[in-house]
């Protein structure tokens, strides 16, 4: 197979577009966040459809207003959020595989369902691999978020691609749940009965403070737990701050923390959470892990 380099050029972008893969596994011991796709389910789906490797890098898009141009032929695949998407001005669906020709332009407009859209590409994006990952993170890779004029490399075979496999439907409904299964965190038992019942019965609002590091919930809880000796935290750890705020740590979160860790999302639950738009409500369903 010929592997020439092609470039995806960013013509216009909102904040929050980045290259992501499965992240930096094994580097938390040096204080390095794991990073990687916020919604690992949709991420895995685009690579699966493209017959890529599981860890191939994709573009993660968290805001509308993105316009891209491909300088060489390839195949791309979309999954995750449902958005208004145009290929060379014509409306296309936000899921499935598309054949891309030289100079094709892709535009991502308003999001109708979900919050994070994944753009996979045949053989993955080829930006720098640092500590075994291409995931963008400030201070580790040269870029944190895509800017206008950025060029992201990919492999092209210079042939017009063709895609003939039968159309597989992406189910947009899986991420529309508002009840998310979580596990009791290591400090859950330190909460009094009343707080535990409150957390199990309340609905929580996703606040505007939502990014790749953390999602803050709007409702405050009475908190009597003191801060604790700094301990490991993970993507999906729910911290209860001394001010009574609930903070759900996401993929770029720091690897240790001093706030009580009251809940823990599963990877699947975290994928669902990543797709919940701000101002929407979620409810916890607490599961025993053993």
């Amino acid at each position, binding site marked *: 197979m010929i592997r020439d380099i092609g470039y995806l050029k960013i013509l216009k972008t909102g904040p929050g577009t980045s290259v992501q893969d499965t992240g930096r596994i094994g580097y938390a011991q040096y204080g390095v966040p794991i990073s990687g796709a916020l919604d690992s389910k949709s991420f895995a789906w685009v690579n699966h459809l493209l017959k890529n490797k599981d860890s191939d890098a994709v573009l993660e898009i968290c805001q509308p207003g993105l316009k891209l141009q491909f300088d060489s032929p390839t195949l791309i695949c979309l999954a995750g959020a449902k958005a208004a998407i145009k290929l060379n001005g014509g409306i296309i669906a936000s899921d499935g595989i598309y054949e891309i020709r030289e100079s094709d332009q892709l535009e991502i407009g308003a999001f109708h369902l979900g919050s994070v859209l994944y753009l996979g590409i045949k053989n993955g994006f080829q930006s720098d691999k640092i500590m075994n990952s291409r995931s963008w993170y400030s201070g580790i890779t040269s870029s944190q978020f895509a800017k206008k004029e950025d060029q992201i490399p990919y492999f092209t075979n210079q042939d017009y691609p063709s895609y003939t496999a039968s159309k597989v439907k992406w189910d947009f409904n899986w991420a529309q749940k508002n009840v998310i299964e979580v596990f009791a965190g*290591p400090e859950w038992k330190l909460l009094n009965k009343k707080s535990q019942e409150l957390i199990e019965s309340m609905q929580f609002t996703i606040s505007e403070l939502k990014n790749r590091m953390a999602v803050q919930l709007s409702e405050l809880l009475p908190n009597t737990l003191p801060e604790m000796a700094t*301990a490991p935290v993970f993507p999906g750890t729910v911290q209860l701050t001394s001010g009574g705020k609930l903070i759900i740590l996401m993929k770029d979160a720091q690897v240790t923390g001093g706030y009580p860790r009251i809940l823990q999302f599963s990877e699947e639950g975290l994928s669902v959470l990543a797709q919940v738009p701000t101002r929407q409500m979620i409810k916890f369903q607490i599961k025993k892990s053993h």
Partner: protein
Amino acid sequence: MKPRFKQISPLICEFEWDSAASDELLRYQLTFKKNLQQDFDSEITELRLGFKTLAVILSNPLNSSVFEDWLNSINPEEISSSLPEKIWEIPVCYSLATGRDLSSLAKLKNINQEEVISLHTQPLYRIHFYGFLPGFMYLNGLKAELHTARKSIPDREVPVGSVAIGGSQTGIYPSSSPGGWHLIGQTPISLFDPKLPIPVFAAAGERIEFTPITIREFDQLARHPRKPELR
């Protein structure tokens, strides 16, 4: 010295000790970590330390009784390995130009700046683990006279290399970041290099010594960077 075992999620579990952070506990944690790594090599993706915790990330779900049985089978008295002897020298320029809170912290503590510097440079600090930022060392050993509550409003930007005090801890910011600690100095030495296979210079259990340098030496080292050196 036997920890408690907690299953957090199917792929995350944790051992937690009841005692406060100390050299003795760290020695125990590090041996415990090494043994876990040996005995569960193929099941463990990652092991991570906290001051009183050791988290385990599994590659596949494992019945929690496996770890509980393992825990019952080990003898906590059989801890022979000692902590590493390595001591790293970190040159620090303690001044208002390189540590903007030096005089306010001295005032808060009712001592003069020279006393702050002398109290901060006296101890050898033990590295317990990395966290907060890539390459940020959690150190134990700050003298009680320098314990200072964190700022109520964090600074928007702390310069790279800042040496700071927050609560009962002291640390060095390996990259610029927002932060709520009191800045008393700055090191010109780079502490984290993402291009290296091991991006940090020191390992958990080793020690750090802060050595005062002049602003002139600081500028020189900043122009001609070098790696941290062993004492």
